[in-house]
């Protein structure tokens, strides 16, 4: 039993990260129909912004983290929107997919060529002490990850539902034309979405890198996990993406332990395909209306 | 002999809201039947149910006496039922001529013969005649996406006739077409109706167009037929006026 709890608790910590990444992914999809194939790299890269700030600019931990958030919002938020997504929107979905696939390659290669191909240690916010929880061992780091991630999502949820700007963003996501008629600055709302995605992925990066080390290939698994989580949970719902992330984190651990370690990567994908074929709107998602 | 199209007590609802609410009518060979009605009265939904794009909730559709409810559009098309859509639906990257051949090729031969047979599925001359008939000769080699709106509308209609259909359902063929082209279109439709004994059902908002083209008009409101008869009779029916102007 303690083994099972151990797996679930560890899975929750990983799942919380997936959730953060998936939420950003789903937000981008809602507001701008962007399928970001570089989302995993968006999590990989901010850790290196911080490492550069610490190593080359001599910053302390917190200033470096602040710099990391700022650069992420700028590059992964604003610049991504302005330079990559915007010129592509009029061409439809496929060119943008291709472009983000290329962006993923670009980011990986850039980190490898200009920083290092080796895994890097990354400073942690909290010291890692291990606690006993129902016979399972949980490190304070994992708890911090879960708490911060859930806090961030809750904050985002509150922002989206309770502030004027947040509601304007949701209106934009639901129907851009109606939002425009209502006098909402649609362009600005879309920009906000991209900034939020940049910040969420940066947060995920800073949470996960101390545990999993920073390396240029880290995005490959994370990006895939984010897609799967977002689709399984429900593409058009923040709650859905969170649920999808947590399910995926736990499922991955349980699959490796009880199904097959060699096929552990297959289990989430099989779930993904099943969801796409039988419930494409996801577990919590709404059906998107289709006209003939 | 059975009617070309028989619709019996057709219902279609979306999440509890009835879009088509018990519609029955028949269309005989050679007729041009107009369907009019205010926006949201269920005209397009009715078409989509007849043509297999949507599954009716209940009721029956018969083509030439054969029950076709729930059949796929492509199988219906093989039975000689063709349609146009409310919004423009041509294949923009194909040439006008290829648009027409594509519209008729599935009626020629088998899968096998289409792969190994002639490149135009033997439809080249038919397509050329159609191009001439609809006065599109000067743009026959152009990509359809580069045509003017009116020309595309003509092409759209022409495509519906490529398979030599018995029954054609036209969804707002006159929408957005200028007056000169409108006359053209009406004349073409009449000619086809005359020459081939093709049967038409036309949804249209342009009253002049409907009244001058159709032999019979049905009026749809809130998913039901509220009136039908000759164009003149319908024009003067108080129920129709009420449906359009509100109570």
């Amino acid at each position: 039993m303690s083994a099972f709890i151990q797996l679930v608790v560890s899975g929750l910590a990983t799942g919380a990260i997936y959730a953060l990444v998936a939420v950003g992914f789903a937000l981008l999809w809602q507001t701008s129909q962007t399928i970001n194939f570089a989302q995993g790299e968006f999590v990989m890269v901010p850790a290196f912004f911080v490492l550069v700030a610490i190593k080359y600019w001599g910053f302390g931990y917190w200033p470096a983290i602040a710099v990391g958030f700022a650069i992420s919002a700028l590059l992964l938020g604003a610049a991504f929107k302005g330079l990559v997504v915007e010129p592509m929107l009029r061409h439809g979905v496929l060119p943008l997919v291709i472009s983000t696939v290329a962006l993923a390659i670009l980011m990986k290669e850039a980190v490898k060529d200009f920083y290092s191909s080796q895994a890097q240690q990354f400073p942690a916010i909290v010291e890692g002490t291990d606690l006993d929880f129902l016979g399972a061992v949980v490190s304070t780091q994992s708890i911090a990850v879960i708490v911060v991630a859930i806090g961030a999502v809750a904050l985002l949820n509150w922002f989206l539902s309770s502030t004027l700007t947040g509601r304007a963003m949701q209106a934009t996501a639901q129907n851009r034309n109606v939002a425009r008629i209502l006098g909402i600055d649609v362009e600005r709302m879309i920009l906000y979405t991209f900034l939020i995605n940049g910040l969420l992925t940066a947060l995920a990066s800073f949470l996960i890198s101390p545990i999993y080390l920073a390396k240029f290939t880290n995005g490959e698994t994370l990006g895939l996990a984010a897609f799967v989580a977002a689709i399984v949970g429900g593409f058009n719902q923040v709650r859905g993406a969170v649920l999808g992330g947590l399910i995926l984190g736990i499922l991955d651990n349980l699959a490796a332990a009880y199904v097959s370690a060699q096929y552990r990567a297959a289990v989430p994908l099989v779930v993904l395909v099943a969801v796409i074929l039988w419930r494409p709107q996801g577990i919590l998602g709404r059906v998107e209306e289709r006209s003939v | 002999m059975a009617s070309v199209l028989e619709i019996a007590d057709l219902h279609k609802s979306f999440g509890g809201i009835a879009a088509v609410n018990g519609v029955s009518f028949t269309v005989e060979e050679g007729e041009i039947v107009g369907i009019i009605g205010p926006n949201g009265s269920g005209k397009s939904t009715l078409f989509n149910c007849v043509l297999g794009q949507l599954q009716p909730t209940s009721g029956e559709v018969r083509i030439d006496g054969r029950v076709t409810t729930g059949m796929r559009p492509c199988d219906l098309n093989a039975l000689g039922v063709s349609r146009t859509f409310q919004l423009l639906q041509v294949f923009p990257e194909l040439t006008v001529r290829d648009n027409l051949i594509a519209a008729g090729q599935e009626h020629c031969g088998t899968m096998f013969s289409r792969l190994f047979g002639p490149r135009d599925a033997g439809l080249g001359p038919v397509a050329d005649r159609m191009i001439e008939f609809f006065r599109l000769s000067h743009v026959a080699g152009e990509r359809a996406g580069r045509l003017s709106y009116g020309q595309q509308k003509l092409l759209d209609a022409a495509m519906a006739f490529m398979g030599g259909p018995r029954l054609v359902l036209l969804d707002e063929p006159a929408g957005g077409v200028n007056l000169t082209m409108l006359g053209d279109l009406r004349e073409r439709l009449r000619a086809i109706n005359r020459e081939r004994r093709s049967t038409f059902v036309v949804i249209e908002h342009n009253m002049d167009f409907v009244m001058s083209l159709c032999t019979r008009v049905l009026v749809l409101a809130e998913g039901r037929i509220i009136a039908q008869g000759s164009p003149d009779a319908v024009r003067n029916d108080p129920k129709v006026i009420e449906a359009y102007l509100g109570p």
Partner: protein
Amino acid sequence: MKYLVKPLFAAAIALSPISAVAQSTVYIPNLAELSGAGAVSGTNWRDGIILAVEEINAKGGILGRKLDVPHVDTQSEASIARAQIQKMIDNKPYVILGPVFSGSVLPSMELSKAAEIPQIMGGEAAAITQRGNPYIFRTAFGQQVSMPKIANYMRDGVKAKSVAVVWVNNDFGKGGRDAFVAEMTKRNIKVVADVSTESGQVDFASDVVKVKNSPAEAIFVYTNEEESARFLREARKQGIKVPLIGETTLLGQKVIELAGEAANGVKGHVGLTADAPVPALQAFGEKFKKRFGYANDHNGIKGYTAVYVIKHVTEKIGKFDSKAFAAALHGMTITPAQEPGILMEATWDKNGDIDRQSFLGEVVGGKQKIVEILPKAGL
């Protein structure tokens, strides 16, 4: 179409007559995993080579000719490795260095064999030297040599009756795992948990749970650098008490750096290490660190000694003759007295397998400590 023609014309113009390699240098290309999954190993290997080449060239080269050693990336992919080695062979190399990944060595060695050019590489898969290829040479133990040493240690040092094995599911990990399990069976030690992990895997919770729940008295960990570090951290977190045993990588510098405290207490066999109580190896380690700013692992030593092997053999045969080189190296023993750059005495057998002393080590206080020197296996 024209996009196709232009480059081909460019090829015709630029490359038709290959100018004879200038007589003042000798062409010894290095093929390594400079990117992709093998980048850590490949970079170490390359830097070891760079160091040796700089030293040799500073002293006037080999037989008066400077070494021309370009470094080519395989991107850790076999098909690219094959294409690149073909490109090298077109330029008529004297000897080819690399690659490090066995998966890249296996397809490429067929080409060097056909061209009769010796290939000194870093791969450790047993299969490499079992194909009767007279042009392939190792710089480190094959798994068929190192695994018996680990197995002996499991039996005699750890005295384990049952073990768990955690391996990375690629050619390196699977090969080691297969050899290890075979050796365990020979020694009547039960393998009670057989855990496959993914290259690039980040969460090792389920793998640690598995070995923790098994009755294993020792755990053998055979994965690449980062994965080793992540596994060690998770193992410490879940309070694994039984000994964690590794083979070279697990006790390497990079793993210790990445795993931090979690690496302490790890034991195992080390084929090559800068921390060995061998002055030449330690001196090399310092040189390496001074030149490149990071601590080398065994791959750095492999690359460094490979170049000195070329120097020694060439000087011995007195000419640049690829076939004679291969013939001479079979059965040769090189001692540090003859060639200081070899660092440790080493012998190559008729298959190209290498034999030399190795070590049993332990990680203590964030440093690798060698506790015992194992004699040459006597192939």
